[in-house]
C-alpha cells in the first residue's frame, strides 16, 4: 500500500506544530512504521532541533528540489528509532524556492517506500502553507484553547475544506485542566463545539515538553510520560485505530460531553 501524507498545520504560529510533527512522527516510528518527517518551513528550519538531528544535516529539501542531491542523501535517519527519517528545511532560502508541485513530486517518490510522510507546515496561509498541504492525504490542524488560536484554526479548516483536503482533524494542544476547572480556559469540548470538526488528540500543557525539546528527544519516546502517551494515542488514531479519549478530569461528565460531540460529528 502506498504511503500516506499527513500535513500538520495551524494558521497561528507558536501553538506546537513542530512539536506535534516530531512527536507524531516518532510515535508512528515507535509503532514500527517507516516514517519521513519533512520540514516545509523554508528559511526557518526547526524540526531538526526538536528531533535532535541538527548536527547531521548535509543536504536539505531545496537541494533535493533543485537537483543538487538525491532524495536519499537529504534524509537523516534517527539513531534511536531506525524507521524515522527527517528531510530538513533550507535555512538560507525562502518559501518561494519550492512550489506545491515540487512537494507533490517529493512526497510521491517517498510514498513508494515509506508508510507515513509527515509534513510540518509553516504558520500563515501563504505559499509555504500551500506547499505543505498540496501533497496531503490528511490534514491535522493544531490549536490551543485560546481565542486567537481557535480563530486561526477555523480559517485554516475552512481553507483545507475549500482545497478539498478535508475534513481536517484537530489536535487541541496545551490544555491546562486546573485552569479549565476554574473556568479560566476553554475546555476541549468547547473548542470542538466551536470548530465543528473531527478530534484526533488532546495534549495537556506540560513543562516536560520544553525539557524534551532542550534535549532533542521527543516526549513521545518517553514511555512514562502522560503527554507522550497523548501523542502516541494520536499516532494510533492516524493508523485508523479507535483509541478512546482519556477522561481529562473525571468530573462533570467531561468525557461524556466529548464523546457526545464526536458521535454528533460523525453522523
Amino acid at each position: 500500500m502506498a504511503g500516506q501524507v499527513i500535513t500538520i498545520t495551524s494558521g497561528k504560529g507558536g501553538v506546537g506544530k513542530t512539536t506535534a510533527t516530531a512527536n507524531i512522527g516518532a510515535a508512528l516510528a515507535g509503532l514500527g512504521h517507516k516514517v519521513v518527517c519533512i520540514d516545509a518551513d523554508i528559511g526557518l528550519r526547526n524540526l531538526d532541533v526538536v528531533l535532535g538531528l541538527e548536527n547531521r544535516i548535509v543536504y536539505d529539501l531545496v537541494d533535493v528540489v533543485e537537483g543538487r542531491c538525491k532524495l536519499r542523501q537529504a534524509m537523516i535517519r534517527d539513531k534511536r528509532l531506525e524507521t524515522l527519517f527527517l528531510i530538513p528545511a533550507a535555512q538560507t532560502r525562502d518559501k518561494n524556492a519550492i512550489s506545491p508541485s515540487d512537494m507533490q513530486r517529493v512526497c510521491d517518490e517517498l510514498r513508494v517506500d515509506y508508510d507515513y510522510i509527515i509534513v510540518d507546515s509553516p504558520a500563515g496561509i501563504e505559499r509555504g502553507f500551500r506547499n505543505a498541504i498540496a501533497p496531503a492525504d490528511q490534514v491535522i490542524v493544531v490549536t490551543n484553547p485560546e481565542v486567537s488560536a481557535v480563530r486561526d484554526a477555523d480559517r485554516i479548516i475552512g481553507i483545507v475544506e475549500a482545497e478539498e483536503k478535508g475534513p481536517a482533524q484537530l489536535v487541541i494542544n496545551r490544555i491546562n485542566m486546573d485552569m479549565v476547572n476554574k473556568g479560566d480556559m476553554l475546555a476541549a469540548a468547547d473548542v470542538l463545539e466551536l470548530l465543528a470538526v473531527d478530534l484526533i488528540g488532546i495534549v495537556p500543557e506540560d513543562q516536560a515538553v520544553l525539557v524534551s525539546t532542550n534535549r532533542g528527544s521527543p516526549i513521545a519516546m518517553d514511555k512514562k510520560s502522560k503527554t507522550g502517551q497523548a501523542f502516541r494515542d494520536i499516532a494510533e488514531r492516524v493508523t485508523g485505530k479507535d483509541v478512546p479519549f482519556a477522561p481529562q478530569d473525571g468530573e462533570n461528565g467531561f468525557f461524556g460531553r466529548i464523546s457526545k460531540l464526536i458521535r454528533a460529528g460523525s453522523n
Partner: protein
Amino acid sequence: MAGFLDRISGRAKSADSAKERLQLLLIHDRTNMPPGMMDDLRNELLEVISRHMDVDRSAVRIEIAHEGRSQRLLADIPLKSTRPRHGN
C-alpha cells in the same frame, strides 16, 4: 461552587467570555461579513419587504445560525395584521 462564588462576586468566568466572543467571531469570519454589515443587511431587507407587506419592525430578528461548519441566514419577520384586500 466556583460558579456560585463567581455569581455572588459578579465576575463571569473568562472561559465563558472566550466562548461567546468566538461564537460571534467565527460566524462573521466564515461568512466574510463584518459585524457592522448585519445592520445594513437588515435595513435593506426591511426596505424591500416593506414595499410589499406591512412589517412589525420592532419584532424583526435577523441572524446567522450555524449547523456544524455551515451557516444559514435566519430572518424572522413578523407582519402586522392587515385588512383584507379589496376585491377578495
